[in-house]
């Protein structure tokens, strides 16, 4: 082993934690400089909630949950899924088209750091979306949140960010890069619609209601609504169903695991192709 020839000016870095921190800061800067992304992914769910949620102000379900609180959950779920698919799906696919990701492979950065940076930013933005909608609901919609239920719901929404981000990256790695953005749109709108994020499931045609339980986003919605309201309120609101919470939790986690495996396989495939 040969000796190292340290430059006198060289300084030690903070290792892995420093890498992750630098990656997160870069993601924040990048996003802050592309306001279209921030508006489309973070601000839009808040605006949609203001348009469709706030007019229900004053209505309360028999169990004490306000309708505004239920719609808060709907649009927060929509925001979570939309962000996960757009940042990990469309954005990552666009980055794959550029040579930078390949160039990073000649550096000692492990690739997980890159994904961790993106995921950390998504978690922060989830809190911004949830906080923005919750604040609007409380101040302008008289949502009268129960603090512990709101905390549980927020935890579920963060879990959703962790679970659906791999779905985005799986699309990014398996779709043709130029098609990824279109595919994300094609996937994400029906998913949100059929899972009851735009209006309650009970208002959907019966055929589509039958499709819903086959969708991972539907089960994510079930977890989120059930953390906000008791079963009776969910049923009257139109979000209730016979599926148990345990089943929904298993489906959501399994979906996240499957998408993680698909992402890893897609990443591996790209690596082999590049090195081939």
């Amino acid at each position: 082993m040969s000796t190292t020839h340290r430059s006198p000016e060289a300084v030690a870095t903070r290792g892995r934690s420093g890498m992750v921190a630098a990656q997160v800061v870069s993601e924040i800067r990048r996003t802050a400089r592309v306001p279209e992304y921030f508006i489309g992914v973070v601000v839009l769910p808040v605006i949609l909630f203001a348009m469709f949620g706030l007019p229900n102000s004053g209505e309360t379900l028999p169990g004490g949950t306000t309708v505004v609180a239920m719609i808060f959950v709907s649009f927060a779920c929509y925001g979570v899924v939309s962000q996960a698919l757009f940042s990990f799906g469309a954005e990552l696919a666009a980055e794959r088209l550029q040579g930078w990701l390949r160039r990073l492979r000649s550096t000692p950065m492990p690739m997980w750091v890159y994904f961790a940076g993106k995921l950390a930013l998504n978690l922060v933005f989830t809190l911004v979306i949830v906080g923005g909608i919750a604040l609007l609901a409380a101040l302008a919609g008289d949502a009268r949140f129960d603090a512990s239920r709101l905390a549980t719901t927020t935890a579920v929404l963060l879990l959703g960010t962790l679970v659906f981000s791999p779905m985005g990256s799986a699309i990014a790695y398996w779709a043709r890069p130029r098609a990824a953005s279109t595919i994300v749109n094609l996937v994400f709108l029906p998913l949100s619609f059929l899972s009851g994020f735009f209006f309650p499931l009970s208002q959907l045609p019966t055929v589509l209601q039958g499709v819903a339980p086959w969708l991972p986003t539907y089960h994510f919605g079930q977890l989120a609504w059930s953390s906000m309201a008791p079963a009776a309120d969910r049923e009257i609101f139109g979000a209730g169903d016979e599926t148990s919470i345990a089943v929904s939790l298993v489906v959501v986690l399994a979906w996240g695991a499957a998408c993680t495996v698909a992402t890893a396989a897609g990443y591996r495939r790209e690596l082999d192709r590049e090195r081939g």
Partner: protein
Amino acid sequence: MPQTVVRTSGLRKTYGAVDAVAGIDLEVKEGEVVAVLGPNGAGKTTTIEMLLGLRTPTSGVVEVFGADPLAVRHRVGAMLQDTDAPESLTVAEIVGLVGSYYPYRLPTPLVLERADLVAQARMRVTQLSGGQRARLSFGLAIVGDPDLLYLDEPTASLDVGARRGFWTQVSGLTDLGKTILFSTHNLAEADAVAERIVVIARGRVIHDGTPQQIKALVAGRTLRLTTDAPLSSVRDLPGVRNVHEADGLPGSRPITIQAATAEPVLHALFASPYEVRDLIVAEASLEEAFVQLTSVGPDVAEENRR
């Protein structure tokens, strides 16, 4: 005794039926400055990519610091020809980000100074010229204070003044004992900068020596003449290194002979029964001789016919 930093043996990369790298044996010692010299398509970039672990060899061995290239990335910096960088970050931010990936790093202001990018620190990549992008690429190669630096055609997009500044910075690194392997297709540059030149053509090492040895090899005379002598007999004349014919027609046709000296060749030619006319003898320029040395000459064409 300096340690071996880079070692390849029988290194080969095949794309379909094409051998991009056709069996390269190379050893680079600690502190050496080695030029890999060859024409475009000789396999320089593919070789460097295999040394970096960015490509998997079809066969053969690569060792960097005695280990797999991927295991020693923290000691290696690379300036690749691909100059992509995140478009929404500034030059200084990109340098800072990449610096965080290494166990030791140079401060960003110092890197910007060495890469001559102080004035561009707050610019985005999209605002940079080709030469500035190449300098950013150099900055990213040195920010991790690597012991081994690969530079793939580093000066291709730099103007003359920038080249001088660039090589001054590189010599500062060699003074620290760092090992440098760079590729170029410019013999004069390899001569000026490297202490050892490895000439590769068609995916093979065809010469490996000091700049003096390589220059002696290619210096000489160029003879242009029209003759009906067969190529094989011309090639056997004393001191002949290389023969090119303009076309493959039988009978008298113009040919070009590369030779160490002109006189023995001319003596032999005039003593032969063949026709010799339109004779021009010129001093071979280094570049011309180098092109002759590395281009696909009639020897290869003949091998294919056999």
